[in-house]
């Protein structure tokens, strides 16, 4: 065999080449802009990520060349739009390693996915005295829908505690499981702390009590390769805009037999197979859960975003983000009076912190003057803030385009904050 032949068959995507963060940055037009006269240092990725040109182009292409309603017309444009929309569904199916595209439901975001499960599966499977088990690190979107359901059904919400590092106490969690537990609903990765939960163990433990498992993957999907079948969860949700896709689109994955048995969420067009005033037959999966004209361009943008991530390789992204996180953690811990909130051993790119004697809101304003965008507040996790005895934190959250230099900029920005409030 000749060298030339070897070269010819080597895949062009070349995952063996080094991750070039500066090349990646060039894919995101917004990163070139200045804020307050300074280069933008965008560290609010857990709130929403910036969009690569490939995603922007996919949306523009749809509206420029394919705009039409899906699953309806016999005309060419409608066929093209339907094809693009359904191709995205398959892209998402592969991204999650789901068994079938029918298990992929397009929703508005993780929040809507959770509410859908609560109001369809929940109202038919959770009864008086039953229990839903969540953790102390949940986002409000994985607390409130269950509170609403519990109130409707006379069920009870139980909360598994976390330790001082922000890790789930697995023993305590298992003690809370019982024959009354109908569902375990948990974050795959905590939005406020970055903690990665041991989802396989959680699912395995829940299975012993025949409890179903819903995972909120909003903060996991951008950072790690996912496999819903290996985790063996029943439902998995995530939001497009946190994986470099547009806002207003998200995914609910559900095991087919569960989705089949669930009543519809909303009634309307596209979710029916026939309607008379006496009786309506619902459409097959996944359309049963997609009433009305969906966010077609959003779904197409989500497909483009996942393809973009695949072209770089999610493992390489994860490796890069881990390096930046480790360096950022080190730089932040050098700052006197800084306390990191969330120090789990298994952690994604989130640096949540408080500076002694300085309110996070003031930290955020001073950093913004230096072009550095972070989030300050309770991060929609008020019970968690209470657990750590802080009203709010400042949070820097990473994406694939963040650099070591940006961690330096954050550290210098925080030194400036300390000077202003010295």
């Amino acid at each position, binding site marked *: 065999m000749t060298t030339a032949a070897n070269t010819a068959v080597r895949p062009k995507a070349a995952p063996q080449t080094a991750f070039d963060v500066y090349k990646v940055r060039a894919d995101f037009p917004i990163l070139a802009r200045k804020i307050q006269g300074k280069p933008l240092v965008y560290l609010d990725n857990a709130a929403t990520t910036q969009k690569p040109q490939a995603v922007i182009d996919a949306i523009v292409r749809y509206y420029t060349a394919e705009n039409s309603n899906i699953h309806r017309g016999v005309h060419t444009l409608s066929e093209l739009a339907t094809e693009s929309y359904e191709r995205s569904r398959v892209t998402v199916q592969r991204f999650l390693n789901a068994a079938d595209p029918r298990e992929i439901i397009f929703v508005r975001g993780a929040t809507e996915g959770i509410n859908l499960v609560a109001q369809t599966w929940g109202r038919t499977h959770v009864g008086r005295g039953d229990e839903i088990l969540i953790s102390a690190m949940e986002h409000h979107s994985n607390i409130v829908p269950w509170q609403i359901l519990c109130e409707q059904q006379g069920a009870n919400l139980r909360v598994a505690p976390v330790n001082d590092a922000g890790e789930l106490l697995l023993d305590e969690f298992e003690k809370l499981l019982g024959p009354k537990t109908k569902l375990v609903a948990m974050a795959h990765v905590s939005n406020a702390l970055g903690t990665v939960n041991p989802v396989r163990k959680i699912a395995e433990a829940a299975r012993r009590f025949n409890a179903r498992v819903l995972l909120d993957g909003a903060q996991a999907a951008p950072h790690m390769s996912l496999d819903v079948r290996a985790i063996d969860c029943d439902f998995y949700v995530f939001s497009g805009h946190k994986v470099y896709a547009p806002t207003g689109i998200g995914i609910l994955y559900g095991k087919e037999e569960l989705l089949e048995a669930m009543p519809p969420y909303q009634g309307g067009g596209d979710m029916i197979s026939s309607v008379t005033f006496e009786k309506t037959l619902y459409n097959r999966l996944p359309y049963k859960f997609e009433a009305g004209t969906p966010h077609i361009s959003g779904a197409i943008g989500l497909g483009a975003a996942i393809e973009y991530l695949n072209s770089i390789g999610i493992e390489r992204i994860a490796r890069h983000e881990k390096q930046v996180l480790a360096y950022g953690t080190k730089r932040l811990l050098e700052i006197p009076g800084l306390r990191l909130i969330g120090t789990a051993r298994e952690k994604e790119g989130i640096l949540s912190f408080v500076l002694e004697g*300085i309110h996070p809101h*003031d930290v955020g*304003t001073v950093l913004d003057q230096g072009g550095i965008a972070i989030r300050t507040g309770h991060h929609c996790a008020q019970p968690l803030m209470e657990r750590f005895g802080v*009203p709010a934190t400042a949070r820097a959250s990473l994406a694939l385009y963040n650099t070591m230099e940006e961690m330096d900029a954050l550290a210098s920005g925080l030194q400036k904050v300390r000077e202003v409030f010295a």
Partner: protein
Amino acid sequence: MPDLRDLYQDVILEHSKRPRNYRTLEAANCTAEGFNPLCGDHFTIYVQVGDGQIRDISFQGSGCAISKASASMMTQAVKGKRTEEAEELFQKFHHVVTGKNGVESNELGKLAAFAGVSEYPVRVKCATLAWHALRAALQGEQHAVSTE
């Protein structure tokens, strides 16, 4: 481009570190809570009113430098004033922090230090939180007020 020193003036930083009238008030006959759910700022304002006059006023709670300094300086500014004078002062203060014309900063005295807030629209609610709570206390509101 707004300068940070316009927002965090020395007098504001000083009050945020050493807030005045920062205590509960036993003799209070009007109290109200001010709560900003977005950033977690939370203050309680205690007022002792007699014959339409603010005899004494204090506050407690936690929040950012702007909200805390504003609460502190507000207590100094309205102490001894008639309730309608306090309301009038709030309206002028509101004009200044939202960058509206028509109020001379000398009408506000020390409170004019908050004029820089108008360059930071998201911080207006921080500067006005204590004032909203004061108004609620004087009007006998039962619920916590929110600037969200």
